[in-house]
């Protein structure tokens, strides 16, 4: 039950994009079309889940026993960067269609702050291994949810008459504000 609550909390109540502002770059950059937004969401969820597991292992099996917590950031970012590369090679070998669906979005994920943020949050909140894993899946699902809703709105927005200075990034931010307001409605639903 606790795990389920953790999942809902990460996916909806404390949505990574709309309440922690993590992963804003892809959220703004890749939300022009619904299809690419869906692929991006899938790719991020995929990497997040694996990254949550691997960074947990690194932190608790290597850094803590040797007293090297100060190297947390350096090692996490290196692990995430190489992990993304590894996942890319692996996906290309295993499933050609999935690789083509994810396309250029896989390498872009390295610089997605949501991944590093996820790893840092799991350490900060002292999750155990299973909890980190569920947190990763939940956060990924939340990211996918946010970016897909955003892409849906932006496709419609193409037809709207937006004041000139607001075109592009400006109106995207205003729409994100409306979405964030909506998601605030979930606040207090669960407290963990």
């Amino acid at each position, binding site marked *: 039950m606790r795990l389920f609550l953790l999942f809902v909390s990460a996916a909806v109540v404390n949505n990574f994009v709309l309440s*922690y502002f993590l992963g804003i770059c892809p959220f703004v950059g890749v939300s022009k079309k619904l299809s690419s937004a869906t692929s991006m969401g899938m790719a991020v969820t995929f990497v997040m889940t694996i990254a949550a597991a691997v960074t947990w292992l690194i932190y608790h099996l290597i850094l803590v026993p040797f007293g090297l917590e100060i190297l947390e950031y350096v090692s996490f970012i290196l692990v995430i960067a190489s992990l993304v590369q590894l996942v890319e090679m692996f996906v290309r070998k295993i499933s050609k269609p999935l690789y083509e669906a994810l396309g250029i979005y896989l390498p872009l994920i390295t610089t997605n702050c949501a991944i590093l943020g996820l790893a840092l949050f799991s350490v900060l909140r002292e999750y155990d291994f299973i909890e980190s894993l569920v947190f990763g899946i939940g956060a990924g699902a939340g990211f996918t949810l946010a970016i897909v809703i955003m892409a849906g709105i932006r496709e419609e927005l193409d037809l709207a008459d937006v004041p000139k200075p607001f075109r592009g990034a400006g109106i995207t931010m205003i729409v994100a504000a409306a979405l964030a307001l909506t998601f605030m409605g979930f606040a207090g639903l669960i407290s963990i």
Partner: protein
Amino acid sequence: MASKKTAPLQEFIKGLWRENPVLASLLGLCPVLAVTNSAINGLAMGLATTFVLLSSSIIISLVRKVIPHQVRIASFIVIIATFVTVADRFLAAYFPLISKDLGPYVPLIVVNCIILGRQEAFSSKNNVFRSILDSSGMGIGFIVVLIILGGFREILGSSTFFGMTVLGEWFDPWMVMILPPGAFLGLGFFIAIANWINARGAKA
């Protein structure tokens, strides 16, 4: 791309407005949105980011000829992450309250695209002097945006500026401005105003 002919002063000034990392290139939006619920947090975040940007630019422009081209991104990230650790420990030691407020957003400077972007686009191709000018210009441009946005949200959201009360009793603070939606709203209007000013300038 900046050629060798541009005046050194230009390298500094371009970061302030024309190539402002936030308003023109939309880089590093995560910290911009996350920490600007008050002006002081914006300032602290801006200074920390500028410190990391400046120090890693200096190091990278010094060692740029030694790093093999294929592994440059990985090397940049290691250098950046080292300086982020320094900044994080410094904040935690001397400004524990601010460090607690900023939370995981200080370590997240590692993945701030402004920093990696400047290293890749500028410091890895230019000498130390020009890199210092470039990154301090970008850093100051970033700080200014953070303070303006943070101040704007703080005044409207809690009617204070740098902790001092500026609006009297008559003003009912708009709580929403210091909550997540306020960040998106504030930045959206900020970008629109910048676009509007640029469009007017282009016409005149």
